[in-house]
């Protein structure tokens, strides 16, 4: 998997601000709070097109809040978020998917009362009518959910649920996919399978991913760039390869 990774160093140059092309998703000095608790304290990072950017850190580091603030579920108290140069800091949650950003939230967000296929259809609702071939493509990517197409989604296992929500997000045809802890509670084999698929979509279809993970080892094995958060601040941003090699950093913040 590591062999298929594009050169991390170029991405890091972008993150450092010397990019020639603008980043796809740019987060600048973002601050947001839950009541009195400041969950994000001036976070800046970029997610480049055609890259997997992993945001890592312990529980409570602000990873989930970061995604929720970017997609508008939590209002930023200051800072700026731009998607392809367009300021989306105060844009409505409902408008995000139309702008090309699909957020798969923490806990996956399978709608248990709907069937598997209906869950997929929700992903394409805002686009109007969608060709059957698009659904077939998702079922080809995830044959395991194809078998359960007409069953209520609550019968799915954790891994199948994760496949369903990624498939659903892909039906929204996003330019960037925001994934919150996709590996949570899944067997390592399933995690490898899902991450392998993400890598393939990024490499062959130009998808971009902002991946939030507590499972830093798996995330760094698939990502191009890693951003380490601690207590709502960015500790370090570097290529996934460099982060993987930095033993002190791994021990201090990544838990492996």
């Amino acid at each position, binding site marked *: 998997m590591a062999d298929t990774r594009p050169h991390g160093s170029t991405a890091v140059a972008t993150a450092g601000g010397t990019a020639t092309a603008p980043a796809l998703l740019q987060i600048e000095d973002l601050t947001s709070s839950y009541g009195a608790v400041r969950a994000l304290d001036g976070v800046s990072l970029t997610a480049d097109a055609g890259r997997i950017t992993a945001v890592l850190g312990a529980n409570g580091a602000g990873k989930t809040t970061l995604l929720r603030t970017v997609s508008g579920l939590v209002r930023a108290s200051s800072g700026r978020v731009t998607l392809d140069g367009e300021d989306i800091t105060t844009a409505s949650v409902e*408008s995000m*998917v139309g702008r090309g950003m699909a957020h798969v*939230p923490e806990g996956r967000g399978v709608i248990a*009362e*709907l069937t598997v296929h*209906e869950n997929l259809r*929700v992903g394409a*609702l*805002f686009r109007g009518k969608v060709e059957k071939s698009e659904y077939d493509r998702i079922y080809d990517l995830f044959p395991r959910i194809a078998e359960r197409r007409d069953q209520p989604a609550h019968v799915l296992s954790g891994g199948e649920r994760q496949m369903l929500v990624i498939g659903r997000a892909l039906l929204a045809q996003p330019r960037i996919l925001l994934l919150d802890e996709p590996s949570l509670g899944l067997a390592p084999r399933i995690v490898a399978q899902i991450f392998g698929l993400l890598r393939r979509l990024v490499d062959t279809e130009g998808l971009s991913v902002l991946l939030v993970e507590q499972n830093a080892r798996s995330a760094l094995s698939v990502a191009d760039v890693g951003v380490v958060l601690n207590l709502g601040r960015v500790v370090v941003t570097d290529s996934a390869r460099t982060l993987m090699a930095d033993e002190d950093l791994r021990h201090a913040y990544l838990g492996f």
Partner: protein
Amino acid sequence: MQYFVNVTLTGLTEGMVYSAFALALVLIWRSTRIVNFAQGSMAAATTFIALALIQAGQSYWVALIVALLSGLLLGAIVERVVIRRVEGGPELNAVIVTLGLFVAIQAAIAIVFGSAFQSFPTPFGLEGFQVGDNRIALTPNSVWVIAAVLVTMALLVVLFRFTRIGLAMRASAFGQEVARLLGVRVGRMLTLGWALAAVVGSLAGLLIAGGEFVYPAYMDSLIVFGFVAAVLGGLDSPIGAIVGGLILGLALSYVSGYVERGSALVNVAALVILMVVLLVRPGGLFASSTARRA
């Protein structure tokens, strides 16, 4: 035997109306986790609008359509103006607000239309069909009642199962945050849900009013019956609401038909049924598996 058939037919007809009313409650419960105690008053309001039109010389059908459309509007306004403020808040807030609406709308009806008993017409006859030598308790009007409810339910099934807007409404009801993240205008869907529920509730009110006297509080007992039917069915299940309504209609009809002075016991019987169901199957007859959320 003939008596039994008649009591059963009466029960099924009334049960259909309870089903419709229960369905209105379930539609709102599913999407906003609120029991709309104002449903009856809202339905009474639209029935009085229909009555005013009929008294002004309009046909029953014109009045029916106007009443259903005003139900749609009333449901949307109530959600947008009042309920939106308590959605997602503590459950008790919503309960108090819908109870307050129940009282306020009923008072408004009395102010606008007066509180006298007025007879409400039926579009079809109230005399039973002739079968052989006997007249049975199935009247042209009860055929209309049953048909109207069945058609409405069929339309709802089509809407929810086969249309994009129906899917968007279900997604909004069951996965609000995910639906928003996927671009569904959840607020609009909730408004639409309340509006549709108010139409179904209004239909129940108009159907039960046919051939009876109406007054601002005439829907009060239907709220009890509709609520019992909805709980019988599990409160979350549209099918459950329909079956619950039919079971309740039959049960109450047997009580009033076979128990001495039974007609005086109907309200009590409804509450007894409610208690028994809650004791035996707290989740209702159609409660889904425990794996699903409460």
